[in-house]
């Protein structure tokens, strides 16, 4: 269970969070207007940003979709996903290919290095990397950016089947995605 207690984050004199408390034990959607600190909160949970005060417990090993795709440009989509999986890549090959098929990625696209993929293809690759990586908590920062409505539905279906009840925090502004996922919605401005 992911537990955030009395979290405080300041940038100089500016206070982003003060006494933020949140418990996440199932998949949830984190909503807030732009500039409210969704990405900063996720970065704190990933251990990339230090909070000014308060504690975060229970995050364990984190799998993430970052605000940017952060794929290794020289590796193919399959190699990017296999990179974060333990042991030899071959044992996951079929599972990765099946998942990419579910996400609507054609076989020939999977042969290309990530630098030659479109924005939506890169996003799907980043999402699959987070879903298949071994971890305790899923943190997904706008994972559906650049996806068309059909791909969005495929991605949400895969996400629901693969997040397996792990504590998950997903940020999105997309009402279609919120509807398709049907998860609890946490509004940051109300915390």
């Amino acid at each position, binding site marked *: 269970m992911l537990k955030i207690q009395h979290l405080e984050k300041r940038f100089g004199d500016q206070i982003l969070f003060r006494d933020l408390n949140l418990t996440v034990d199932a998949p949830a959607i984190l909503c807030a207007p732009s500039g409210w600190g969704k990405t900063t909160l996720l970065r704190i949970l990933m251990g990339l940003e230090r909070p000014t005060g308060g504690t975060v417990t229970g995050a364990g090993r984190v*799998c*993430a979709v970052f605000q940017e795709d*952060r794929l290794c440009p020289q*590796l*193919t989509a399959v190699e990017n996903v296999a990179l974060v999986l333990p042991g030899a890549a071959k044992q996951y090959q079929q599972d990765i290919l099946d998942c990419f098929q579910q996400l609507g990625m054609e076989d020939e696209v999977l042969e290309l*290095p990530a630098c030659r993929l479109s924005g939506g293809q890169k996003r799907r690759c980043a999402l699959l990397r987070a879903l298949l990586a071994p971890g305790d908590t899923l943190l997904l920062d706008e994972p559906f950016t650049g996806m068309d409505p059909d791909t969005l539905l495929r991605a949400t279906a895969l996400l629901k089947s693969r997040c397996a009840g792990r504590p998950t925090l997903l940020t999105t502004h997309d009402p279609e995605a919120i509807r398709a996922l049907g998860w609890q919605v946490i509004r940051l401005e109300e915390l």
Partner: protein
Amino acid sequence: MRSAKQFFRQAGAIGFWLVLWQCAAMAVGQEVFLVSPLQALRTLAGLLPRADFWQRVGFSSGRILLGFGLGVAVSVLLAVGAQRWQGVELLLAPVMQLVKATPVASFIILALVWVRGANLSVLISFLMVLPVLYGAVRTGIRSADPKLLEMAAVFRLPLRRRLKAVWLPAVLPAFRQGCSTALGICWKSGVAAEVIGLPNGSIGDALYRAKITLATGELFAWTFVIILLSAAFEKLFLALLDQLTGAVLGKEEASC
């Protein structure tokens, strides 16, 4: 088609300068001052079948390339250390600046006090290569994408995978460029060290002997040999490095 055209253009440019050199040599008319390209080639052809020619080539190449190899190993270690610990970077900065700014002749004369003439070219080529490769590897390390490094940290990638996926793609292009420059420098400085240290059986020794006996043909022939050796080793080393890069990073690296 374009590469053939380019080849003929380059050959034409070289031909132009060779003709000009030949004309100048004919105009001067004294081989002691300026030997013609034809005479230099004849002298080189005369050197090729001799056993001592190949012994000299082996002697100098072995030592100069040993210096280069040591330079590669030490510069990579120091660059990684400087990246890891700020104290190392701070300590190394003035040393690298000093090595870069000091004339090679000063190093050679100083080093003659410490090492035998036969090993002088190893030390000098090592010293001349060190700051070039250290700088190149540091540049490569600095160019690694911090966002990919964060990704690697979050997903807890093991060191080997971090190296292959993030560090090597960033470092290898800069390292390759550094090696290309350093290989030329190590031949120039290594032979200069031999000319001053005069180890028996070296190319530098042959150059010096050609100078004191006013054998200008041999001087040009040996210079030509040094240029060829430097170019050949650079091409060979870079080809090997490209092969290694392809094997480690995959062939698609070049297209990104």
